[in-house]
């Protein structure tokens, strides 16, 4: 770009524009992917509680033993009452937060807490 006039087309092919477009595309695609795959992670048994718009206690199963990072993350959504191997028990999670948790790709399944038993 030797200081020549930046016509619209050249501007678009310029590496900055391409970079921003690619970043936007990847980010958008990723968010879409998460939103699409979120419902599969929620146990159907939780549907009634969700539709009742009432906070619910859940058991979140991960593919690995949770680290401090995950515990702190879940604490921002509700009260973490315990950890069983790769499952974290979180109480009083609002339905909206539940939807957000479901979007984390590393969450295996979110099921009703009572089923797993204290």
């Amino acid at each position, binding site marked *: *770009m*030797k200081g020549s006039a930046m016509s619209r087309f050249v501007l678009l092919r310029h590496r*900055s524009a391409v970079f921003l477009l690619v970043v936007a595309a990847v980010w958008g695609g990723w968010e879409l992917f998460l939103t699409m795959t979120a419902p599969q992670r929620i146990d159907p048994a939780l549907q009634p509680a969700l539709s009742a718009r009432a906070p619910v206690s859940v058991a979140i199963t*991960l593919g*690995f033993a949770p680290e401090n990072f995950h515990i702190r993350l879940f604490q921002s959504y509700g009260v973490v009452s315990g950890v069983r191997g790769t499952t974290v028990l979180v109480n009083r999670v609002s339905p909206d937060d539940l939807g957000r948790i479901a979007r984390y790709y590393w969450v295996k399944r979110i099921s009703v807490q009572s089923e797993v038993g204290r």
Partner: protein
Amino acid sequence: MGRYWEITSTWGVILTVSIATWSLAAATLPVPDYFLPPPSAVLSAFVELMAKGMLPTFVGESLRRILLAALLGLFVGVPLGLLLGISRGTADFAYPVLNFFQSVSGIAWLPLMLIWFGFGERTILVAVNYTVLFPVIFNALLGVRSVPPIYVNALRTLGASRWRIVRDVLVPGALPNIAMGVRLGLAYGWRALIAAEMLVGANGLGFMIFNAQAFHLTARIMLGMGIIGALWLALDYFLLRPLEEATIARWGMVQR
């Protein structure tokens, strides 16, 4: 021997030699394992942190904060700097103040902000944005002040209004300095962000490597450092350098 071959072979040699010595050192040096993990450990740390969803969050948080600071710097810092620079009165008042505040690094303010905003996101944002904003404002002001008067006078002789002088001479003339200010501000801001994340302990690359040190997870430290460097190079190559080339190349204004 073509130049291509020469460069690629030198790259090949340097990369293989460095990885080899690193692995060798990791295996043979009489130090505890966590001192110098081999390259393979860094790779598995990457895989692990991706699987656990931690890396995307760390990178995402750091990028969000620096890009926010960049936007603020561009759309608030630059106009403010230009505004202060246009009239001699405000410029002479603002220059020493800005010069002082610019020389106090954002991190030096962090302890005060911990008192004002506590250990949270706000402290990080204020520290980073402070670090980015002041060099941007300062250099934008400097840019306006260093536009050679002959351009201003030339336009004045054409009967240009004050606004037109600002638009056609002062702003374009200041662009090289503005670009430099943004670049410098973000360079300082990026490092202030890493330090702030370490001190405040909020999710981000700074926190990642600092926290990893507490658990002797050196592989994660090295991974984090690699990403910090790589992200800056990407930001620099794709966003900052074009900004600078666009301003300097367009007007060939390398002021002597």
